[in-house]
């Protein structure tokens, strides 16, 4: 969210060895999800691991840890010699998910935002088909989380498209350099930068649904796959406003 403060610590060459042994898997593999359907009680910090590549543990990796206060630490292991740590500090004015205050703000925001983002009614319809959510006191908290999640997915998709669309710039930057060695160096730098940016987007794309599911399990105790699949089909076109205490 916009008011959250991000700190980026770039650690080169001596980044912590955060690799964990992983089984072979697909393009993205969740390895350690502390939160499970059996345990309603959340064990903090919540940890997620996402990897890219056919051989898990052999390619780019993202390790996310989320504390009870909402502080998120994300470590991107992009190459063997480069890792980036991003710390997202929550805005203290935003109430915690699962609180009555959050629900009240989420409900208020729903009725305001639906004037513009009409697909929120589709999200609500889906949550109403999820008895646990409907019977809980946190229906609007769930809708709000889905709104934030879908907006995030759209943002990541646009970043992906932007990266592809911006690729025309690279050759111009390279051609502007006359020295052959410098030109090769520049080409290498551009390629590395594109690879890094693409991998970060892919890792974030893999992490976002897992984070959303974890938060839903925390809120409702369980979160059925069919409900998640249905939510995935709804397009969101606006960015949600932050829920701030009055």
């Amino acid at each position, binding site marked *: 969210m916009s008011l959250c403060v991000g700190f980026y610590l770039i650690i080169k060459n001596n980044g912590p060895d955060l690799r964990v042994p992983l089984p072979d898997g697909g*393009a993205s593999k969740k390895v350690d999800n502390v939160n499970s359907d059996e345990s309603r009680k959340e064990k903090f910090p919540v940890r997620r691991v996402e990897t890219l590549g056919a051989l898990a543990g052999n390619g780019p990796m993202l390790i996310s840890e989320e504390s009870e206060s909402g502080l998120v630490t994300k470590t991107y292991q992009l190459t063997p010699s480069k890792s980036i740590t991003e710390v997202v500090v929550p805005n203290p004015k935003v109430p915690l998910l699962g609180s009555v205050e959050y629900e009240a703000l989420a409900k208020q925001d729903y009725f305001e935002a639906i004037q513009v983002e009409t697909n929120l009614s589709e999200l609500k319809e889906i949550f109403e088909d999820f008895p646990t959510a409907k019977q809980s006191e946190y229906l609007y908290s769930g809708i709000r989380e889905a709104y934030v999640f879908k907006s995030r997915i759209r943002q990541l998709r646009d970043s992906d498209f932007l990266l592809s669309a911006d690729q025309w710039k690279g050759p111009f930057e390279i051609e502007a350099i006359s020295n052959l060695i410098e030109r090769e160096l520049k080409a290498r730098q551009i390629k590395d930068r594109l690879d890094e940016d693409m991998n970060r987007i892919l890792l974030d794309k893999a992490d976002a649904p897992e984070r959303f599911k974890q938060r839903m399990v925390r809120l409702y105790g369980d979160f059925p796959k069919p409900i998640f699949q249905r939510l995935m089909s709804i397009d969101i076109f606006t960015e949600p406003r932050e829920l701030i205490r009055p």
Partner: protein
Amino acid sequence: MVMDKRFLIGVVVCVLVFFAGWWWGFESPIRLGVVESTIQNESQSNTAVTLSRITKVDSELAGSVASVESNPSEVEGITNTYIFSSNHVVTRVVIPNPEFKIFGTSQFESLAKTQFENLTINSKYLVDTNLYELKEVFKDFPAAMNSHFLYSGIYQVAVTTCTLEEVRQLIFNTRYQAMRDLEEANTITDAAERESKIERIKALAGAQLELYKSIQQETLEDGRQNLIKLYGELPKPIFQRLLGIELRLPMGRLPYP
């Protein structure tokens, strides 16, 4: 590419026609003063997956409301004519892939099943597990499981979701191009020329976006109608679940002569 070549050719043709119409006709003072009702002529063909139902195109940026004429071609496919204002015409020719001539038959089902197996159990490459996810969703849909067209449905969903993703990218690219053109236009020193250029860029981008949005709606509706054609019904939750599964790659063309 995700979308089949014929569909892309259709889009390219329509954009070219649009550009031609745009540059020849932009300065024309004649504008449609009346909102014309949408003309809908749906094809009755059983074969065309991409045949279009047309919706009214309302473009704020274009400052006009486009009417759309949709005429089934004499040969195959459908020709859509979008009229954004006088002299601003977009023609989209949609020609269905030939394999869809046999959509809903056991021959199509057999081809779709073979394609599914080639991409999963018989694949030499990394398998997109989301293909299995699609199959899992269909297992919760008795009408599909009891029919003989399970794999035809999977193939149809793959076509729909991949086309939707491709159109999303076209929408993004249009916005991106408009942003770049506007940046360039803002450097023009002559105020009148600058404003005129900016107006043209906005109108063109607006019309293109509306066109793509109508293609999105048509793709969704065509996909839904084809699944109903196969199974007789399609509950909304099932359709949503199917659309919620993203495929990394399309299933590819069926080997139909």
